[in-house]
């Protein structure tokens, strides 16, 4: 859970990119790392614990400081999880202390079962950590929209965004940096809104 440090006026927030294998989670972090505008020293190194074939083994990690709002520094820690099925224990570890989630779905038709399975796996893992998807801000990113076999957005909405409360969703081509910042800014906005509501003093 996020930490507010009143002594240094800092808010630390953890955002996890979740989704099926090869869906573009690491690409999102690489694009943020390469294209974000920051003041000197506000962007950390992108750390990837990956296999020799660039498949995420443990997690990718990018610490980044957003622009200061009203004198308050917001430090974000962006993580990805390994998408491959065998690494479920690792996904549970990375989800610990999560504040917000970007679910990166693969738009290709043949990947729909994996998208649904991964989303169900996310809910199961949150449950194992005594968390509920309804209490955690998340956004959906439909990646690889530029591929010819991409399923219609309406179909993906039907599969992944059909709960009582619909969440924001974005089409993306992460390798071109399209939709990457839109997803990140929206999850940031949802998180700050949640924190502001939580921190408001109780009404008399």
């Amino acid at each position: 859970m996020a930490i507010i440090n009143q002594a240094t006026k800092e808010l630390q927030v953890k955002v996890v990119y979740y989704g099926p294998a090869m869906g573009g989670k690491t690409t999102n972090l690489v694009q943020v790392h390469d294209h974000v505008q920051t003041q000197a020293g506000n962007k950390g190194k992108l750390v990837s614990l990956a296999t020799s074939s660039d498949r995420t083994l443990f997690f990718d990690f990018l610490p980044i400081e957003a622009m200061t709002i009203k004198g308050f520094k917001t430090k974000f820690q962006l993580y990805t999880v390994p998408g491959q099925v065998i690494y479920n224990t690792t996904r549970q570890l990375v989800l610990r202390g999560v504040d917000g989630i970007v679910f990166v779905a693969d738009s290709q038709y043949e990947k729909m079962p994996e998208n649904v399975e991964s989303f169900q796996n996310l809910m199961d893992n949150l449950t194992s950590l005594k968390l509920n998807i309804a209490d955690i801000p998340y956004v959906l990113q439909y990646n690889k929209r530029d591929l010819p076999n991409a399923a219609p957005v309406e179909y993906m909405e039907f599969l992944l965004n059909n709960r009582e409360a619909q969440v924001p969703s974005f089409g993306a081509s992460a390798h071109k940096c399209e939709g990457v910042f839109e997803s990140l800014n929206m999850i940031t906005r949802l998180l700050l809104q949640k924190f502001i509501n939580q921190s408001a003093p109780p009404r008399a």
Partner: protein
Amino acid sequence: MATLPQLIEEDMQRLDDALREFVSQTDATAALIIDKGGFLIAHQGDSSQFDVTTIGALASGAFMANQTIAGLVNEPNFNSVYQQGEKSSMLVVNIDEHCLLIVIFSANIGVGIMRYYASGTIRKIATQLVAAQNRNPGGGYDLSALNIADSEKLFRKKK
């Protein structure tokens, strides 16, 4: 609604004092308190030579992974990870359900002295963290001073 864990000036001062005393007692290079989610909470010693944010994230992951492995081999007694180096060594010790103490020290110094003094330091840190978690929710920092409209483009893309 649950409130956010908040650390005030007094908390930070006591945590820093505990770490500073530990570094002085042991001659450790640096000592850090991190949350098990990977957040850096406090650090003392000569940490300017290290990327403490990344060390925090990786050490919490490594500790949790090792704890899970210990569970898989039916080992219930797990509370630290020790990495022995040629120049620098590192000890990660459990503080409580939420936090870890990381100590980076010269390989010339034995790990025994670190473990010995860490036990007292951990008690002090844990006491303060419990106080922070139990603090009157009404006394928390009001984030409504932040204007959500300003967050429209928190992260901007280079042109």
